[in-house]
Each structure stands twice: as structure tokens, then as C-alpha cells.
């Protein structure tokens, strides 16, 4: 690895990881602001104008809060669980292309931290590891609510992971590549969401599964407050709780980014951005378009939370196994047939 490549990598990590963390922090504020707006309240408005400094204040508060671990907890796993919950979401940042590749003097610098050819597999692997933090957190707390919440949540996550994987394979079939940059580049003429019917159905399945994977409403049975208090993080406090929280919001940001890349053409905007001559302006405009799409999905995540009631457990499992999984498999078969016969 040359020094220039190393510097480029470090800059990319600083920018993209920074964007993800800040977006996650800002969404915690917007979650409260939007919920207040939907419920005709004010929301946080004391720390700074319009409450903009609230995430910062929360972070500081979390640091100085007392850590409490229940007496029967397993010390090693109790500490490890928040880290294992947050890390997979952070690691997914590695493969997401935030904008168009930068072309300087003929060299192409891809705008994902690691532009690897098995990018989609990496995302799937990280997604399948996200379940550990929740399982271990629930188990190590030695609390009935935590254990039930962890068990439910992990069963839910693995159930929806299947439908999500199959819908991603549909995208791979359409694109013919596992490299995320190439996947969005293949969509510049036509976004996958508009490839009717296979792309549209895959988008719907991925979106629903994304809600379930991030344990968001209407699938947040892990912590349905009325029956399980806080679910798997009932016993967590201080920064350990904050890491669970940050992990959830980072996962939301990442899911939004991946939906954008898989179905909405990533940073492309009807060929407008793609046609820009100046390499730097093209990269910045692409980043802007990408982040705008991500913010739309973040808003959708929050909007749904404050609008739709929660599923019941059996409804949730039936939806995953009896509707989404068979539908996604049939959709993949259809996509395969269309691609193999040369229609798409």
C-alpha cells in the first residue's frame, strides 16, 4: 500500500465514519423533534437554539452517569455485549459507496472505504453478527425481561435476515456483481426500484426487513415497553446503554445507505450528477444526493415509528416466514428467469 493510498484511506475513514456517527447522533434529536411534532409537543428545546445541542448534552451525561450491573450478571459478557452490538453497524460503513468514484488524472479512487469485490457478502456477514450484542446483552444481565427481550429479538432478526438476504441476491442477479460501487453504477440508467416488478418487490421486502433488523417499530418487540420494560438493555446504564443506542441509530443510517445503494441508484440523480465534468464537484454533488436520500429514509424510519402500532409476536413471525420469505424466493426466481432469458 502506497503512502498516498494510506492517506486516502484515512481521510475516507475520517469523513465517512464521521458522517455516520454524526447522522446517528442527529437522528436521536430528530427522533424526539419529529415525535413531538407528530404529537403536537415541543420536544427538546432547552439546550441551544431549537435544542440542537441536545445530542451533545446527552453524550456528556452518559459519560458521567453511574454504571450499574446487577449482582447476578456475567461480568465479561455484560461488558462485551454493547461493543458487539455497536461494532457491526460501524463496520458496515467500510463497503458503502458514499458518492461517485473520484477520477483524478486518470486514477480512479472509489468513494467507499474498502471497494472490495465481495462488498455485499461483507455487509451480509456484518448484518448476521449484529445479533450477538443483543443475545449476549439479554443473557448476561440475568434479568427475565432482558432474556426474553434478547431471545425474541434474536429470533426476529434471524427470521428477517433470510428475506433480506434473498432480496439482496435479487439485486445481485440484476447487477451481476457483488461490488457496491458497480451495483449503483449499473443503476444510473434505471434505478432498481423502477425495474418492475422484481426490483420493486425486492425493495419492499428489503425495506420491511430493514425495520425488523434494526429492531425499529413496528417490529420492536424486543423492547415493547408495556411487557418487557427495556428488553435486552433493561439493566444497562451509562455509556454501555449509549452504545446500544448509538448502534441502533448507526444501523438505521447504514440500512438507509444500503437501500439507497441497492435500489435508488446511490448518488445518481437521473443522470444529472453523472454528467458533471469537474471531478470534485461531481463527488461533492453525489455525496449531497446520497445523503439526501439517506435522510429521507431516516425520516421514514422515525415517521413509521410514531404512526404504526406494534405487531404481535405471532403476527411478526408469520409475516417473516410465511409472507416475506416465500415472496422473496419467488421474486428471485422471476428475476433469474428474466435475466437468464435476456429480458433484463
Amino acid at each position, binding site marked *: 500500500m502506497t503512502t498516498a493510498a494510506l492517506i486516502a484511506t484515512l481521510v475516507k475513514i475520517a469523513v465517512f465514519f464521521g458522517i455516520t456517527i454524526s447522522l446517528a447522533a442527529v437522528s436521536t434529536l430528530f427522533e424526539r423533534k419529529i415525535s413531538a411534532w407528530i404529537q403536537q409537543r415541543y420536544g427538546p428545546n432547552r439546550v441551544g437554539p431549537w435544542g440542537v445541542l441536545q445530542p451533545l448534552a446527552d453524550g456528556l451525561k452518559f459519560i458521567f452517569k453511574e454504571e450499574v450491573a446487577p449482582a447476578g450478571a456475567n461480568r465479561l459478557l455484560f461488558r462485551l455485549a454493547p461493543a458487539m452490538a455497536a461494532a457491526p453497524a460501524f463496520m458496515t460503513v467500510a463497503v458503502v459507496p458514499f458518492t461517485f468514484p473520484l477520477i483524478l488524472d486518470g486514477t480512479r479512487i472509489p468513494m467507499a472505504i474498502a471497494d472490495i469485490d*465481495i462488498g455485499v457478502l461483507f455487509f*451480509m*456477514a456484518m448484518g*448476521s*453478527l449484529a*445479533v*450477538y450484542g443483543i*443475545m449476549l446483552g439479554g443473557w448476561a444481565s440475568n434479568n427475565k425481561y432482558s*432474556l426474553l427481550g434478547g*431471545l425474541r429479538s434474536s429470533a426476529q432478526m434471524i427470521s428477517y435476515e433470510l428475506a433480506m438476504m434473498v432480496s439482496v441476491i435479487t439485486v445481485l442477479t440484476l447487477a451481476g456483481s457483488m461490488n457496491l460501487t458497480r451495483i449503483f453504477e449499473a443503476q444510473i440508467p434505471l434505478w432498481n426500484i423502477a425495474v418492475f416488478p422484481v426490483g420493486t418487490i425486492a425493495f419492499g421486502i428489503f425495506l420491511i426487513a430493514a425495520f425488523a433488523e434494526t429492531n425499529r417499530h413496528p417490529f420492536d418487540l424486543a423492547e415493547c415497553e408495556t411487557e418487557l420494560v427495556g428488553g435486552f438493555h433493561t439493566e444497562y446504564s451509562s455509556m454501555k446503554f449509549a452504545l446500544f443506542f448509538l448502534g441502533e441509530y448507526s444501523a438505521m443510517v447504514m440500512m438507509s445507505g444500503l437501500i439507497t445503494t441497492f435500489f435508488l441508484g446511490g448518488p445518481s440523480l437521473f443522470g444529472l450528477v453523472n454528467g458533471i465534468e469537474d471531478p470534485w464537484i461531481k463527488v461533492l454533488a453525489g455525496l449531497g444526493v446520497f445523503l439526501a436520500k439517506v435522510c429521507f429514509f431516516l425520516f421514514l424510519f422515525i415517521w413509521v415509528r410514531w404512526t404504526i402500532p406494534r405487531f404481535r409476536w405471532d403476527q411478526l413471525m408469520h409475516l417473516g416466514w410465511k409472507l416475506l420469505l416465500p415472496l422473496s424466493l419467488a421474486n428471485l426466481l422471476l428475476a433469474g428467469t428474466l435475466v437468464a432469458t435476456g429480458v433484463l
Partner: protein
Amino acid sequence: MALPVFLILAAGAVFFAANVVLRRNPAECAVHLVGSFFCLAGIYLMIGFPFLAALQLLVYAGAIMVLFLFVIMLLDLRREEPRENPRISTIAPLAMGLLFGLLAVVLPDMPVAVATGRGAVAGAGGAEGGKELANYLFGRHLLTFEATSLLLLAGIFGVVVLAKRRTSRKADLERLLENIEAESRTERKEPPLVGAGSEGVAS
């Protein structure tokens, strides 16, 4: 650059694997096994099998270990009781040593299978999106690939037969009542939990 990274990964794999055996708490063992899988995935990556590395994480760490943890959570395996069984503790290491010796003798004689599969698996991470792997798997070993689906089907039948034993509601209820009774009997013998006094309520 490559050698120190390999040494770290190899040492990590051995350390985690040793902990799987040495730790008493089954959940901790499971987590250490995940750590060992991570190190192995790193080694696969280093020898040029990125596809295999991703699958190692996806299937072993992401699916099979989740099942293990589920079973641990379901069965209330809090602490493994230390058992004294002198016969097993002498036979087991001997058997393991024998098996390892056998492997060491047999493995160098199997370069054929390794060589043909190697190129295909290594190509799976390449720019072509794993064309070689696809040719190998779906062309040359077409029948094996289709047989895999039958194997998975057999797995599905097996688990349904095991987990979905037909029982009448009445029998279920009786078993539940029995369990509750048995539990309440054992509870009385257990000492109270730490900090479970009345004072916990007052605050």
C-alpha cells in the same frame, strides 16, 4: 507486513480455541469460539480466499454459533459442573493426539483435491464476480450442488420431526404443571439471590 499479521491471527485463533475448552461458562465458550472464527476468517483472507472468509463469518459465526447460543440460552446451562471422570480425561487426549497424527500423515497426500478446488475458490473474490467458482460449482459439480439441496431438505425434515412432536393439549398441560411443581420444590432449597431483600423495593 504479512507475517506479523498472520502470527497475530494464528495466536488469536489458538488463544480463543483454548479458551473454548478452558472456560467454565458455556456462553463465554461460545463467544470465544466466535473470536476463533474471526481469526480463521482473517487467515483465509490472507491466503487469498476472501469469499471463503466472508462465508466463514456469515455461516459459522452468523448462523451456526447463533444456534449454539440459542441452545445455551434455552437450556439454562449456567455453569458446567466439574466432573471427575479419570477414564475420559486420559482417553480423550490420547484419541485427539492419534487423530491429529493421522491428519498430519494423510493431509500432504491430498494435494489433488486442494489444487482443483483452490483456483475456483480463490477466483470467487475476483473482479469477475466468482466466474470460476460458478463454473466449478454449477458446471463441473452440478450433481453435488443439486444433492446439497436434498441434504438441506433432509435437515428440514429432521428438525421438524424432532421439534414438532405431536402432543395433545392435555399432555402439554400436565407436563407444565409437573414442571412448575418440580421447580417450586427445588427453589426452596436454593439460597436467596444477592440483594433480593426487601430493601430493593424501598428505593
